[in-house]
């Protein structure tokens, strides 16, 4: 009987993921409202619960366990991007145009800043070759840019794995810390959401963090964040890496 039910869930993994996420939200909503009296939003708790569950799996989080494989469809980049685009219905073009230049500036500052800090840290950990440093520093931008730079400059696969790990750490921190710090850093309106998306860049982290903070801010943060990865994929291997190579022959 148990085997029968298990097979049914595996065969209909995508549908099972709706049930799973629904139950997760039910539990965290109850915890948020009744146990901790709304101090942390239920959505933020649900995301943290998701991250904890992910820890039980492997490279695809909980989706590595066959019965939960459907989560990889619901939470995959196709569904994520489609839903992000849908949030822009009703967003104001005027607001986006108005904050456009600051958003673009924050994009460049965010990429340069993360890359620089990543460089300093990998240098202080004893890395001395420009290839490894550039790859780890690109990972500090987002986990997609790390491998792009790594492959472009010919870094070793261990270093590329490290760069992905650095990017995932960023996702975890942005996801958890955004709702907790939003008020303190002034992340309260559309303009600051656009700046936030540009500075952080990691689409997964920004979209999750803003969803847990204030759903209305999502399209504004997401629109700049989605340009971050592409811009960083240009800057890191073809601008920052050559500079590093000159500095570190």
């Amino acid at each position, binding site marked *: 009987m148990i085997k029968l039910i298990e097979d049914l869930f595996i065969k209909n993994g995508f549908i099972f*993921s709706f049930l799973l996420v629904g139950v997760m*939200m039910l539990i965290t909503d109850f915890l948020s409202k009744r146990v901790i009296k709304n101090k942390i939003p239920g959505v933020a708790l*649900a*995301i943290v619960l*998701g991250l904890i569950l*992910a*820890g039980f*799996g*492997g*490279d695809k*989080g909980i989706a590595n366990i066959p019965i939960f494989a459907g*989560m990889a469809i*619901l*939470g995959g980049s196709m*569904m*994520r*991007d*489609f*839903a*992000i*685009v849908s*949030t*822009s*219905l009703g967003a104001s073009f005027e607001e*986006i145009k108005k*904050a456009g230049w*600051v958003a673009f500036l*924050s994009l460049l500052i965010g990429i340069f800043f*993360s890359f620089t*800090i*990543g460089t300093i*840290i990998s240098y202080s950990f004893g890395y001395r070759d420009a290839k490894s440093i550039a790859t780890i*520093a690109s990972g500090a931008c987002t986990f997609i840019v790390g491998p*792009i730079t790594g492959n*472009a400059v010919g870094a070793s696969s261990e270093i590329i794995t490290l760069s992905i*790990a*650095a990017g*995932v*750490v*960023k*996702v975890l*921190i942005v996801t958890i*810390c955004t709702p907790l710090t939003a008020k303190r*850093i*002034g*992340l309260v309106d559309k303009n*600051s959401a656009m*700046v936030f998306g540009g*500075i952080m860049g990691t689409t*997964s982290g920004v*979209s*999750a963090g803003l969803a847990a903070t204030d*759903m209305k801010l999502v*399209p504004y943060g997401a629109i700049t964040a*989605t*340009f971050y990865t*592409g*811009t960083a*994929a*240009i800057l890191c291997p073809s601008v920052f890496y050559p500079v590093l190579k000159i500095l570190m022959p």
Partner: protein
Amino acid sequence: MKIYGVAMLAACYFTGLLIGEVLGRLLHIQGNLGGVGFAMLLLILLSDWLKKKNLLHAEFESGIGFWTSMYIPIVIAMASIQNVQSALSGGLVAVVAGAVSTSLCFFLIPLLKGLMKKNEQ
């Protein structure tokens, strides 16, 4: 018909991604350059235009609205498929590089916001 709204959303999604792919090819980067961002802009402009022409039915909007309401569940599912294990065991340099650069980024937000205000005045 709700499906018209969803189809419009899908059309914007593909057009945006196509623009991103072409830009990526032109600039010789692996991957898509801001395709989702272009898709968002397209949907905003298209729905504005339809509203002005009085063609944006409530049904259209509710079709798209369903996907907006699925956004948070999708984000929760996304959290559960992250590679948390490798992030935590990937070596100290990865954890420190990710953690320090991200934490410092949070401090940049108030700075840039101040800059924005100054510019407005």
